């Protein structure tokens, strides 16, 4: 599911100003899991939370694509609707997957930084 972790850059030339806007995490399922790790949320709350978390604003298609896949995997579950809004919660399996993914990303990040330091 989250194996295609990538960072995208929309600019070919990185100047000082664009360094702060270098790219964004574009793995919607991982972002949804990370958002739900702090408690159940409905779609709009997830989008706002994810934007606060990493600066990525998911569109409705990307969000519901991720929700459908995560629900299919059994990593999130829908809760009863609240005023037409449908909250979702992360499952114990989802928490395990999220922890494993973030640990892997952390290792990747450490290895990448180590290489940079060696230059």
């Amino acid at each position, binding site marked *: 599911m989250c194996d295609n972790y990538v960072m995208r850059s929309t600019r070919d030339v990185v100047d000082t100003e664009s360094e702060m806007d270098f790219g964004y995490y574009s793995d919607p399922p991982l972002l949804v899991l990370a958002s739900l790790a702090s408690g159940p949320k409905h779609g709009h709350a997830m989008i706002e939370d994810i934007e606060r978390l990493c600066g990525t604003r998911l*569109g409705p*298609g990307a969000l*519901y*694509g991720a*929700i459908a896949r995560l629900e299919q995997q059994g990593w999130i579950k829908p809760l009863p609707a609240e005023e037409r809004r449908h909250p979702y919660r992360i499952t114990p399996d989802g928490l395990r997957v999220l922890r494993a993914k973030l640990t892997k990303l952390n290792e990747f990040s450490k290895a990448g930084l180590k290489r940079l330091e060696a230059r």
Partner: protein
Amino acid sequence: MNRRLASLLTRMYPRRWRERYGEEFEDFLLEGRADLKTWTDVMRGAVGEHIHPTMGGAMSEYRTTFGTVARQPSALVPLGMALTALAVVLGHIALYGAAREADEGAAAHIWQLLMVAQLPALLVFGIRWLPKAPKQAMEVLGLLMAAILAAMAPVFLLHL
């Protein structure tokens, strides 16, 4: 976004997806912006669902029932082989009796070929379905093993 546009965008998704998420997705769109970025994102999501359906929620349960796994060609082929092998043995017994013959006839060779050919077919089924739906795949494997044992039983019990 107005209701008409939200409904139009939702209708671009496959029917099964809409049955599960359509209502909440439309409500979600109603509360959001109606800019080009949103349209593009929704259209991309809809095209993706048509190409690689996620079949989320209750639909995934539909997809992974015992029946749906058992009807897969990778399960039907070994099942068909086992049942054909059983039919060959029973047919031979019905025609020529259960007496052991010194020379193996055509029926014996067909039975042996069918029994051996099932093994790679079973392997393919296991590799394909055990990771996707372990419980249902194990149940189907149980059925296949029962069919294989049924095909072997007359040969060993009657010492053919």
